[in-house]
């Protein structure tokens, strides 16, 4: 039996057009930035020690922030996915608060606590940890604004794994911890990993909170801003291109690594289909 594809209806044509407008809105500035900057100036900027060091600092600080959030956030994500308890909705809301905060306001809030006169700032100073104009400050700012991406994505990934897998594992002799490590975690690993990469990418691109808490040492977004303020658009463009390219590489790698399916729809627990 052969079937012919139906002709697209008017609504499909309309929706496609609206979507194309949105795609152009995203794509045009990105392409204008990349194509409107000479490769020579980008290579020149990349040769600068300051830029290279700034890039390294950005990636590294975002990685530490993600690692800390992973240890603290993934267990919380699991609890939120599996348990019902009083105040759960409140906790879920709190996790998402950084998304609705203006990030400069987040930076001010963090400075109040981690600054030289803040509670944690004073408490941790004897340990050699200062947060103003320091790498720990950058880490704290990045972590604060980007942790919802990890916790939310991991929670969704855990929720998609049927809890009965763990029950079966328990009847097969696994303790609760072992059951989690051998069933739910490996089944949710695509989603958790997607959360990790999204948080990392979001950390790399953070500006508002970092600039308030730790203007120095300069991460790439701060560097871009500084060059724009000090020397104008043409000076800012090469550095901007570098960070945009890095972000694109990370994102493309993520898509390739997690397969052709949508990042959020990795559902190992829901189907009986083998993973590719």
């Amino acid at each position: 039996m052969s079937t012919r594809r139906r002709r697209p209806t008017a609504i499909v044509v309309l929706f496609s057009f609206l979507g194309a407008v949105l795609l152009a809105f995203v794509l045009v500035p990105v392409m204008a930035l990349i194509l409107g900057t000479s490769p020579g100036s980008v290579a020149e900027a990349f040769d600068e020690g300051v830029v290279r060091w700034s890039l390294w600092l950005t990636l590294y600080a975002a990685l530490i922030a993600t690692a800390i959030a992973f240890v603290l956030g993934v267990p919380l994500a699991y609890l939120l996915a599996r348990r019902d308890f009083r105040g759960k909705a409140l906790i879920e809301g709190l996790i998402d608060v950084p998304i609705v905060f203006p990030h400069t306001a987040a930076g001010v809030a963090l400075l109040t606590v981690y600054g030289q006169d803040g509670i944690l700032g004073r408490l941790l100073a004897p340990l050699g940890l200062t947060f103003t104009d320091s790498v720990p400050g950058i880490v704290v700012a990045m972590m604060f604004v980007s942790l919802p991406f990890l916790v939310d994505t991991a929670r969704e990934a855990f929720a998609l794994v049927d809890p009965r897998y763990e029950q079966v594992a328990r009847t097969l002799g696994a303790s609760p911890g072992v059951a989690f490590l051998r069933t739910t975690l490996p089944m949710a690993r695509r989603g958790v990993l997607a959360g990790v990469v999204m948080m990392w990418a979001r950390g790399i691109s953070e500006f508002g909170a970092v600039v308030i808490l730790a203007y120095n040492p300069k991460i790439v977004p701060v560097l871009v801003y500084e060059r724009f303020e000090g020397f104008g658009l043409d000076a800012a463009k090469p550095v901007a291109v570098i960070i945009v390219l890095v972000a694109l590489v990370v994102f493309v790698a993520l898509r390739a690594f997690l397969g052709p399916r949508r990042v959020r729809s990795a559902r190992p627990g829901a189907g009986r289909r083998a993973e590719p």
Partner: protein
Amino acid sequence: MAQAGPFRIGPLDLEVREGEYFVVLGPSGSGKTVLLETIAGVRSPAGGRLLLDGRDAAELSPEQRRVGFVYQDSLLFPNLDVAGNIAFGLGPVTTRAWVGAGLRRRPRAAGDPRVAAAADLVGAGELLQRAVGGLSGGEQQRVALARAMVTEPRLLLLDEPLANLDQPTREGLQSVLRQIHRRFPTTVVHVTHDLPEATVLADRCAVLGDGRLHQVGAPGDVFGRPADEFVARLTGGRNVFRGLARRAGDHTIVEIDGPTRLVSTTAMTGRVGVSVRPEELQVSAAEVSRGGDRCPTGRAADNRLEGVVTEVLDLGATALVRVALPVTLTALMTRRQVALQSLSPGLTVHVELAASAVHLFEWQGREQPGGAAPDAGGIGADDRSPFGGP
């Protein structure tokens, strides 16, 4: 999936004997899964006690109870291959192996001879290297059974294990289940809504409905002598009525809807429920049948009634014949019998029925004018049970 929340079952007082194959029969939503999950320990009872081998199981975690659990939907671990799934209960150390198209995790114990033995037991020996995603429903359930059996559980809990399978696959797995039960001392608790499954497999069975137990006994007793209306209807009794019974000599006469009188060997009086299994009725065209000599038992007290066929439903190998006496009785006959008698709507027939097949029970149901059961109307979709289609 069974959900907790407002749902509650019990109190239940149920004893399963060591080594027996026990089937819990109940419609969807009657609490069967909750019952099994409580026995397995993944759900805690709100009250009461659960004894395993005479020991209070309250302080035993699921992993200490030595129970095997097989769900209706297999729940094979998708991140492991078939051997890895079966080996899961043997230990946590994993290695990687090429399976199907890619590198897949499997417990190191996958090479254990116990894994191959368990797979062979369920007829899954050929599947060990396969990924679970490519398995058919029947294969998945075989692997799930092997996975549960590899740890030699003392109690095997089966939650509608055959419900998603087609008829031939189901029969194949029924014989696997019988074989497992014959070869191992494992006690089995199997829940199902499928009647033939219960009669084929059970040593004893229990009927669960609305969160409570209605009857426990050998399948023959439950089917032939239902304790109440719920059991009578669940076990495929299409002829369930309310009646008034009185004793007459060594038998009982029960009046259904005034004019219809049936003789029963059950000793009861007053308001009763009446259940007649459709396969016990014999329908013959009036001009063909002569005298009462065709009754199965040949006893004088047996029933011989005249009526008119209102409907004949061809089920393939069998057929349902509805006869208005005026109370409507439904008979299950072979297709050949129907053809031989040329039974068709409008034909006047004799309905013959042994007194021992007229089962009486205490009526607790609602009062109904006319005495007929509420759904004694047309032949519906569920008329295909208990003997199925072709």
